[in-house]
């Protein structure tokens, strides 16, 4: 399956595009532009096909993993080769951008890698090794293989200093929103388990918030915040304004609420009533019961809610630039404004990477914090 996708990407679609400058459309070049690396790409796609026909489970996993990782490395060097050769004799404004074929190849690669069981490997050492080697090979392609000459890398070079600030801003924004969401959501979820009226109100309201489009919510927040900041100078001194980080943070906090409140509520409500009865009957106070029994049992679900919220917030943070926040969204929307696809990518790729990392890390944290006695 993965090999089929990779093959289609490698044959039918343009590999790279050579453009006169960063804005105009350019001329497509096939995989042949990768020079000698093209042969390696073909070879690795072949190995990927082997994974479909190999006789044993182990051989299938090995060939699909090998072709998955190998393709990433071969792609990095192949693109680098194409960029260096195509740009020879071109004016300095000329750009080499990644073609559709590369993305399809990468998709195929991801399928190959995952079917090789990457996601099933819980032991860090077992998947960290190939991952580090692959990363090193890609870094080497940047240093010596010409990968630094593609358009995406040059967009980065131009904005290197602001890129890191924006990445930091993105993390800070999503992280703060998540923190507020936690600080508010967990107590609300707890309250909902203790009071039937609170439950219907809290779960209802957080559910409704989730249905409000994020841009609309941001827009709705700007006017009242501006008025508030005008009226209360103390808030103004704190940096609360209609435009800036404040409306974004409020929106993010609100969006984080639903998954966190709901999972906290469900996690706590699902604790066996017999366990609570036994705990109370043995003389535990409400606090002792909460801290020693209810929270430990609900924790895996709460973390699951935090995971959902974090992925959601990393995405929505992008939109907060419309209300004046500064983060990776700026690159995306500047890129859109300038019709500069590689600038969009420079913003979008790290956002995707952040979301994936948050997802993986919080899944791992959830597993680690699941008490041994209740592990599936």
């Amino acid at each position, binding site marked *: 399956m993965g090999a089929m996708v990779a093959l289609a990407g490698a044959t039918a679609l343009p590999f790279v595009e050579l453009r006169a400058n960063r804005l105009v459309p350019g001329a497509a070049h096939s995989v042949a532009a990768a020079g000698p690396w093209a042969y390696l790409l073909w070879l690795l796609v072949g190995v990927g096909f082997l994974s479909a026909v190999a006789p044993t489970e182990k051989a299938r996993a090995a060939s699909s993993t090998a072709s998955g990782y190998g393709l990433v490395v071969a792609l990095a060097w192949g693109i680098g080769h194409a960029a260096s050769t195509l740009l020879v004799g071109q004016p300095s404004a000329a750009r080499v951008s990644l073609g559709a074929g590369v993305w399809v190849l990468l998709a195929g690669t991801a399928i190959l890698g995952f079917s090789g069981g990457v996601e099933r490997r819980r032991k860090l050492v077992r998947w960290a090794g190939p991952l580090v080697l692959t990363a090193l090979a890609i870094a080497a392609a940047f240093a010596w293989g010409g990968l630094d000459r593609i358009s995406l890398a040059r967009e980065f070079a131009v904005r290197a200093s602001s890129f890191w600030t924006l990445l930091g801003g993105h993390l800070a924004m999503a992280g703060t929103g998540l923190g507020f969401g936690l600080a508010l959501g967990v107590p609300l979820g707890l309250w909902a388990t203790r009071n039937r009226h609170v439950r219907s109100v809290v779960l209802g309201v957080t559910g409704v918030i989730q249905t409000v489009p994020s841009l609309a919510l941001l827009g709705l927040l700007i006017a009242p915040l501006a008025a508030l900041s005008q009226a209360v100078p103390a808030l103004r001194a704190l940096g609360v304004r209609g435009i800036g980080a404040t409306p974004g943070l409020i929106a993010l906090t609100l969006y984080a609420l639903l998954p966190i409140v709901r999972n906290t509520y469900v996690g706590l409500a699902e604790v066996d009533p*017999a366990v*609570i009865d036994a705990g109370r009957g043995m003389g535990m106070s409400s606090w002792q019961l909460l801290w020693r029994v209810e929270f430990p049992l609900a924790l895996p679900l709460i973390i699951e809610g935090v995971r959902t919220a974090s992925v959601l917030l990393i995405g929505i943070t992008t939109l907060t630039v419309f209300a004046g926040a500064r983060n990776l969204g700026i690159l995306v929307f500047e890129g859109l404004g300038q019709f500069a696809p590689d600038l969009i990518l420079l913003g979008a790729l790290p956002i995707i990477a952040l979301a994936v990392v948050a997802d993986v890390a919080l899944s791992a944290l959830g597993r680690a914090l699941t008490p*041994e006695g209740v592990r599936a």
Partner: protein
Amino acid sequence: MIRLEDVTRRYGDTTAVDSLSLEVAEGEVCVLIGPSGCGKTTTLRMINRLIEPTSGHIFVDDRDILSMPAEELRRGLGYVIQSIGLFPHLDVAANICVVPRLLGWEKSRMAKRVDELLALVGLDPEAYRDKYPRQLSGGEAQRVGVARALAADPPVLLMDEPFGAVDPLNRERLQSEFARIQRELKKTVIFVTHDIDEAIRLADKIAIMRDGKLQQFDTPEQVLNHPANKFVHDFVGADRALKRLVRVRVADVMRSPATVLADSDALTVRVGAGRRRFAYVVEPDGRLVGWVDTNEVDRGLRPVEAMTRMDPVEASVRPDDSLRDALSRMLGLGFRAIAVTDKHDVLLGEVTFAAVEEAMTEGDEHISNQPAEDAE
């Protein structure tokens, strides 16, 4: 030890418990019994203040329980419930130590106590202390539940249908083990059940309730022989004579048996067996191996040649078994008498059908002070 004075609990218009007065002496097992909805569980839960009485007073050890903090009260009352309510995220040792931990015991003392209690309830400490509740069978989990209730050595045990969710075979074993533990520890026990056989077997006093009102509060013998009203009469059932047998222990009615040594000659057989037609054949160490028709021996056969071998486990009862066990075993085997052996298969005596009949009709004679139970 425990005194209820005019205790009433109302829920809106319904009265769950209606001016109930009871007194349970120290070291006594008081069984609360009645059809569902009769108020027995409500009564139990008022004693540890999981439910507060609408009016009336409850005294534990002459202290009005409403005058002490609920948590402190509960830590002194062991609590066992049908659904057990072990904490799924804690291992067996930690589950047992819930109350000791609340009381601030030292680690070494808790570890020692865990092993003591596991041994007491018939679980190997080595094998069980690190297990998690989900790794236990229903019977094992309920043993841990009992051990947990006993952890801080409370003078009082409150048990709410503790063996109700266990299969019948395991229930009987748990009942006899409970009887053994109770003989050893002499706790004051309030025990809720809807199983009249269980009540008759374990109780020193039975409190029969209906619609929140006490119908009769007396010893099992009195309840069986002199039911206070038609409800009690019907509730106890038509087989009262048979039930009475549960209260009589084999040890109380057994007689000394006629025995012959397996290896003896015909003459000694005649002397040993006296006038009896059948004699038990034993090894020199007293172990039961079979029975012999003394007429056969008259024809010159040695006991070892003439005897019918029998499996002592199948064909004998223990001194602590109830007469009902003895009767059912006799009926199953088609014998008019059954051997009584200890756990090493050493013959101790025999119980005849005539003795069972006598106990059934005479009722009050031979009734032991201890509940009948299976010996180990």
